[in-house]
């Protein structure tokens, strides 16, 4: 395991009874990298990601996240990562400002920095007129962008995004990726799962999971050469066809 890796995973495995959801995967994510974590439904990518975030306990293997050991230093990891889940995860019955204050609060930010962060965020997202309105009044695209900003509130070294652009229109998707690039520019490592293959092309490197294993890993252009495919979509389809299991 190299020292400057943001995430380093060796033989990480998760079994639920006799079912092996994640089967001895190994990979490294470099600091400041945008790492695409792809796979068909049921391939095990969400389970793998949940283990790295501390939401699920690995059956075996080794991993460090932000330099901390997944088994021995989970509290340190929690302080160093941000997480945005598939589901929309702000409180609809709280205003934009209250949501920011709450999430800032549980990450231990003080009142002053919560205030300045709120102003900063509201300005960047052009939400000035909405800041004291309930979140449920916002359109989905805004909510997703706000969710991402909230996940970045405490300036985490790594941010985990679980299908962040599901159900969002192409324009907002584009804007969302601009935000991801900006975060990566500032040095945040971005670990993102997605079903959109055009988004896979935006990533620095991608891994593709099939049946609990990582079957391909590399930059999008490397993978296209390796699998003699014109696009990431073709690469993905070639690999996903081999899958024996699915969601249902």
């Amino acid at each position, binding site marked *: 395991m190299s020292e400057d890796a943001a995430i380093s995973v060796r033989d990480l495995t998760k079994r639920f009874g006799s079912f092996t959801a994640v089967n001895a995967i190994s990979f490294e994510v470099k600091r400041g990298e945008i790492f695409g974590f792809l796979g068909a439904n049921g391939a095990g990518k969400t389970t793998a990601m949940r283990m790295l*975030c*501390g*939401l*699920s*306990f690995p059956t075996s293997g080794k991993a460090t996240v932000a330099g901390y050991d997944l088994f021995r230093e989970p*509290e340190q990891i*929690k*302080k160093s*990562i941000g*997480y*945005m*889940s*598939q*589901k*929309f*995860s*702000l*409180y609809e*019955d*709280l205003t934009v400002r*209250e949501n920011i*204050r*709450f*999430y*800032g*609060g*549980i*990450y*231990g930010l*003080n009142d002053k920095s919560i205030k300045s962060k709120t102003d900063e965020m509201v300005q960047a997202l052009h939400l000035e007129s909405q800041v004291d309105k309930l979140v449920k009044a916002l359109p989905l695209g805004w909510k997703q962008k706000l969710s991402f900003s909230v996940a970045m509130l405490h300036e985490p070294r790594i941010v985990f995004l679980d299908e962040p652009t599901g159900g969002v229109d192409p324009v907002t998707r584009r804007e969302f990726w601009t935000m991801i690039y900006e975060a990566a520019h500032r040095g945040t490592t971005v670990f993102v799962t997605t079903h959109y293959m055009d988004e896979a092309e935006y990533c620095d490197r991608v891994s593709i999971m099939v049946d609990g294993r990582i079957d391909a890993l590399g930059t999008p252009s490397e993978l296209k050469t390796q699998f003699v495919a014109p696009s990431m979509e073709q690469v993905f389809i070639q690999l996903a066809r081999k899958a024996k299991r699915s969601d249902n």
Partner: protein
Amino acid sequence: MKQFFFFIRKEFYHLLRDPRTMIILFGMPLMQILIFGFALTNEVKNSRIAILDNAKDAATQSIIQQLEASRYFDIIQVLSGNSELEPAFQEGKIKLAVVFPAGFQQSLGHENAAPIQIIADATDPNVANTLTNYASSIIYDYQASIMDHAALPMTIKTEMRMLYNPQLKGSYNFVPGVMAMVLMLVCAMMTSISIVREKELGTMEIILVSPIVPIRVIIAKMVPYFLLSAVNIGSILMLSVFVLDVPIQGNLVLLVGECLLFTVTVLALGLLISSLADSQQVAMLISLMGLFLPTIMLSGFMFPVENMPIPLQVISNIVPAKWFYYIVKNVMIKGLTFSYIWKETLILVGMTIFFMVVSIRKFKIRLE
């Protein structure tokens, strides 16, 4: 520690912004007390009765007058023959009929014995029993009044005193029961729903990824409901004292302390439910079937536990509300001190610790 207060503030926003929650929290106790206090009463008053007087003499007249004067009875029909009895009951007009035989006063005077027949509609056996008791005691009073002149050589007089509740008010019995029910609903159901809601929304994941310690999440979830329950306890006690005239005989501090203890017990139960349930509907169902029904059926509030079959009596011991009901009844109505209820209090404390430990362990297991 600051994280903790951010969390509690957020919980209050949720509570205060949801009108349905607010109605359940504050409307329900008020409604239950008023409904039980004024509508659902099992006291018997102004029951409609009929008289069949075949004697029409001074003695029967004076008994009839006393029946009429009592607040339990309302004579709505005076029958003229036995054949009218059956139809009057069949039509459901009357609950009770008093039949005097011909020559009542004569038999009483000459034979020293006179029969009176009391016929009651026993479709509701408890009401029938109560009514016949009232009627007999009015007749007994009459007998006693004429006996002053001609005392019998030997008589046994029964003298009754109704302790703790001389007026036999139903509210003395149900106020403690309603308190158990309301706390059960507010604490157990609302807390479990509020935790499960976060699971459903996906916000629980975000919270679990954050550095906040899970036990603080749990406590922060409980604090607002604990405070609101304290308000509810206060309002129920005030309503029962000032509206229903149920006095607090015992020590108020002890009573409130026991109420707060029970609040913590049911909060822990709510927590346990939330770790078992994955949707708000399931949480609500478990709360209603698993907590609310046993509270009503097995706490002794509606049906006396002593009369139940042994297996049910045994099961009733695991219903926390049974112990709470016992405690409140004894402190509030009988005015007993802590030395009489320490065993029951200890049982509640034990249950609380057990539920807490189990649910906190469960909560932790889920996130690992």
